[in-house]
């Protein structure tokens, strides 16, 4: 199983890369301890990877994930949503047993 972006999320990632003038950088996805439910998601751009990283390409966007984070993210789809209460990337994580109300953290 891999990690995927929805077409809408991929477009948003590309848009942000263009704005930041880093069109070739990959999206680094990782999990950190913290947040209301224990684990929280972290996204940032990075141009380097290690041999221990899992590497995927989704809708033209390269994605790097370290091995530890991958255990918690396998099978995750990342969407981009806009609503009255804000906009942002949404993680649909089959390994999450519960998520907090704002969706930024989860328990596993």
């Amino acid at each position: 199983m891999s990690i995927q972006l929805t077409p809408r999320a991929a477009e948003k990632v590309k848009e942000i890369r263009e704005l930041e003038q880093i069109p070739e950088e990959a999206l680094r996805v990782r999990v950190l301890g913290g947040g209301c439910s224990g684990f929280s998601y972290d996204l940032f751009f990075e141009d380097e990877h290690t041999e221990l990283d899992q590497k995927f390409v989704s809708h033209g966007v390269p994605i790097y994930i370290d091995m530890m984070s991958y255990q918690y993210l396998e099978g995750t789809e990342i969407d981009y949503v806009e609503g009255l209460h804000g906009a942002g990337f949404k993680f649909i994580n089959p390994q999450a047993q519960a998520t907090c109300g704002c969706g930024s953290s989860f328990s596993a």
Partner: protein
Amino acid sequence: MRPSNGLSKCTARIGGYTPLMRAAVLEGSIIEVRGDDSREWLNGQLTAQIADAKDGEVRRGLKLDRTGGILAMPWVFCRGEEFDLFVEREGAKELLEDLDRYIIMEDVELSLREDTRALFLEGERGDGIFARATLYGMEGAIRILEEGEIVESIVQTRGAELLDGQALETARIRSGTPGRPEFERRRLLPQEAGLKELVSFTKGCFLGQEPVVMLEHRGSPPKRLIRLEMEPTLARSLKSEGTGGIKGADITDDTGAAVGEITSVSSNDERGFAIGLLRKRGFTLDTLHLRASEGAPSAAVTAFAFIGEPPDN
């Protein structure tokens, strides 16, 4: 009539003489938190504000599970960017394992130092060695003892009285400070335990935050801890002989229906003290009674008081 919002005047003056200074040795274990991300990571694990803790300071927070239930109430000793969590010996390994689950890619390492002790001195000021702290209502300072360090001379030098384990437990219960007996019996949110002051509602996310914040904005907690004062004979009759545990004792309402239970009890020569858990909301203190087991002295509960803020029902 009992007051609905605190202890009665007659019990407030009861309790015997108070020495100028008291000292206590706390038995515990230390969970060492080391690594470059220690401060930020720990701030996300505990309810207390750790982000701005200064070298030499000690803070007290709660470790919650993800549903907001209290697991432990550690002292957090800040040593620059390193932190020592002083926790009760019992359950320290489980707490370490629980904390360890939440280290993913952070530069944080945890290790356990068992069988450590801390010395609390009432009236002592923080001086770089001792850190200011409050223990069971006593204002003073605390520090972790070196292995084999003899405390008697430190205590005697200051003219303090060293509380033994029984006296310390009595001080805990008398002050209405919940501890392991309360946390083990039922899952308690900070507001239910009267420990809201150990929660920072402004520092940002921490594990278990969501139910705690929701409760804060939605009124009274469903369960509440209360404090009781009673005749010492009654308190002694509530203790099981030998085990030191508690015999069954219900807190009842005016109709005689059980609405709570006793979780901790202790006494000195003059007074008995207990902590109890009310399982439902909506009771005023003047409607509560204690129904002790058969053979216990009747009546003799002189005061009930909510621990923490009184509920608005």
